[in-house]
């Protein structure tokens, strides 16, 4: 096989895999910059996926994306009510929200698509090549012949960066995440700011879930996010709480995942399970190399009682 073609395929797959991760991670950057770790984004993604599937079945892909976003916001609202409204432990609340989401999506899904839980097949969003750019060698198809959700990601990642670092609401979000007391003294409402950040993060996680269904897999299955929300949280750390960094880290993760296609194509006799492990292990070691709590928002994870 032509190595250039293989490399091109790997890149296309990498960007595809990276898209939902980058969206979810960007949302989580918003939440974490405000001082909130939301492990519930796994649940928000799962609900986004189900919402995307149901919306698309009823009224087409665009509606699917909308319903997915809405579902993500609702899950985030549940998390926000408990973790921010009542000031409960964020990690535990997030775990519970995800647990409940697994149960609810599984149940609702069977309610909609029958007890056997099969037979749902949706057309995936087709790639939209951008004239000229898509013709670039090697990276053209990967970056510029992707479904609309990838282009949304291209817009949202820098947008969230701009919001965080160049606007007053962004300043307030970062202040709340660094030092709630100082933010309050400056007249910023800690809870309200955090709630907005978490809801916006939920919207992005919902969009990520819908993307997974509508742009990648074409169906919904129980627990289909398979920990991608948690991966997104690791990606936030890798990206040093910066949306652009998170976008790049997501791309790296996508590349690590997509690499298995290339290695399999190369006829290497390595059990496929090791390729399944690879992205997670790479993330672990990248975390060891890249982190340090130093970069994290100082008030991250500390609930207001």
């Amino acid at each position, binding site marked *: 096989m032509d190595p250039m073609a293989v490399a091109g395929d790997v890149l296309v797959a990498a960007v595809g895999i990276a898209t939902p991760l980058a969206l979810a991670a960007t949302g989580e950057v918003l939440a974490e910059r405000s001082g909130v770790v939301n492990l519930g984004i796994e649940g928000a993604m799962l609900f986004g996926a189900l919402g995307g599937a149901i919306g698309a079945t009823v009224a087409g892909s665009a509606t699917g994306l909308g319903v997915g976003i809405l579902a993500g916001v609702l899950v985030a609202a549940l998390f926000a009510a408990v973790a921010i409204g009542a000031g409960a432990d964020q990690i535990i609340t997030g775990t519970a929200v995800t647990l409940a989401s697994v149960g609810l999506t599984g149940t609702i899904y069977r309610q909609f698509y029958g007890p056997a839980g099969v037979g749902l097949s949706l057309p995936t969003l087709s790639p939209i090549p951008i004239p000229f750019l898509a013709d670039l060698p090697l990276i053209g198809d990967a970056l510029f012949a992707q479904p609309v959700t990838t282009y949304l990601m291209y817009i949202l990642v820098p947008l969230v960066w701009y919001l965080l*670092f*160049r*606007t*007053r609401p*962004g*300043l*307030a979000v*970062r*202040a709340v995440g*660094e*030092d709630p*007391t*100082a*933010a*309050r*003294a*400056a*007249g*910023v409402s800690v809870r309200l700011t955090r709630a907005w950040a978490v809801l916006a993060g939920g919207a992005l996680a919902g969009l990520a879930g819908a993307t997974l269904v509508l742009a990648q897999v074409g169906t919904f299955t129980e627990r289909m996010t398979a920990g991608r929300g948690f991966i997104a949280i690791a990606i936030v750390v890798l990206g040093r709480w910066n949306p652009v960094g998170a976008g790049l880290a997501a791309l790296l993760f996508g590349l690590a995942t997509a690499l298995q296609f290339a290695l399999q194509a190369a006829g290497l006799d390595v059990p496929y399970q090791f390729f399944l492990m690879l992205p997670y292990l790479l993330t672990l070691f990248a975390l060891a190399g890249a982190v340090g709590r130093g970069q994290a*928002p*100082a008030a991250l994870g500390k609930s207001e009682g």
Partner: protein
Amino acid sequence: MLLTLTGISKSFGAVQALRDVDLAVAAGEVHAVLGENGAGKSTLMHIADGLLPPDTGTVAVDGRPVRFRSARDARGHGIGMVHQHSTAVPAFSVMENIALAAGWAVAPTRLRRRVEALTERLALPLDPSLPASTLSVSLKQRLEIIKALAAEARVLLLDEPTAVLAPAESEELFRFVRRFTQGGGGVALITHKLEEALAVADRITVLRRGAVVLSSPRSEVTAEGLTTAMIGGSLVVAPPAVPLRDGPVLVQCEGLEVRGDGGRGLRQASCTIRGGELVAVAGVEGNGQRELLRAVAGLTRPFRGLLEVARPVAFVPEDRTTEGLIPSMTLTENVVLGVGRAASWVTGRGVRRVDWSAARQRTAELADRFDVRSDGTEATAGSLSGGNQQKLLVARALERRPRVLVAENPTRGLDLQATAEVHGRLHAAAAAGAAVLVYSNDLDEVLVLGDRVLVAAGGVITEAPAGIDRVRLGAMILGQGGPDAE
């Protein structure tokens, strides 16, 4: 009148913090609010700044009644508070902090120009792009003032502004205050220092136990009158013990260097402390004294140099509820935690066990002996008042039977009676043969407490000459006019 508070009362649960208090700040005037810790000064200022609502009474700006729902509300009316401790976001730059406080736009280039224009106009220079975490204590305070003035405050509420400053820095601050009032602004200066009120105020109000006991123009009051008003009754103070000059050397350091958080730290310390001595360290925050104390207490490893400390060592940290006590645990548990495994209630060899009934009994004895008032040994440490928490910390430290006792700002936030009790305990520990090393950011306390005084300046520890006065000590902590200086 710029700001008028009339008939303000406020209580927390059963505690009446303020009772029918009046206070007015006029344009062009510095109004000092004097009172000892716990008199209600801060509560009053929090009400003026919109951080707390009053139970009864009114707040008026320019004679018109207002109701503040937040600090932002108060700021909108031209009230700016300069808190005792920095309210800047450490990770933000100076200009980001100003933008946050004043509601300015964030675009970097324009923001920088705007901040530079402001600092120039105020004659308070400060680099806009420095991270707030790297500023010295006095620059942090300058940032607080600039933040308030960026929001166009006409009334500045200064909460114990000199508590963390060296005398020369305080004077610089008061020069600014005079400029500000001459320009038509009004200042409320909260302080517990009499001389300060007498030196800068145009009008003085004294609070005691939440009520106004005196309010007059500066010209009509005397120091004696103010003291009586502040304290009310007389005070029992233990006489300091006579130091034993010939005790054994219990702390010895030579060329000691300790790394601090964020670069600065202790660069050079040589000292000897004998049993029976009470040595007090003077210094502005961040000059190496913290590292010295913590190294002597065995909490940080020296980076270089010699350090020999007799054991056991006991340590009373400044931050009572984060580093000292665990608020959610009981008195007994906190005592067990701090006394360590040499205590009689820790039994067994392979797996060490805790004999809780023995620990409870001993805790009850300690609480009784040190006058720690609580709902019993099983009450949580968080339910104690600040003074009682401090007494518990001191009791616990002494229960280690330390040969070396180290304490950081041991009387911060305590009222005069509790302060006197803590001082008495420290003197008693020294009299019993321990080497006692205390840091206080209050120069007066250093002078009252220490048999000898060490000075921390720029990470270097030097010994102050015997009989040094407040002015010369103040110069020394700023690194000027030491014994070797010309």
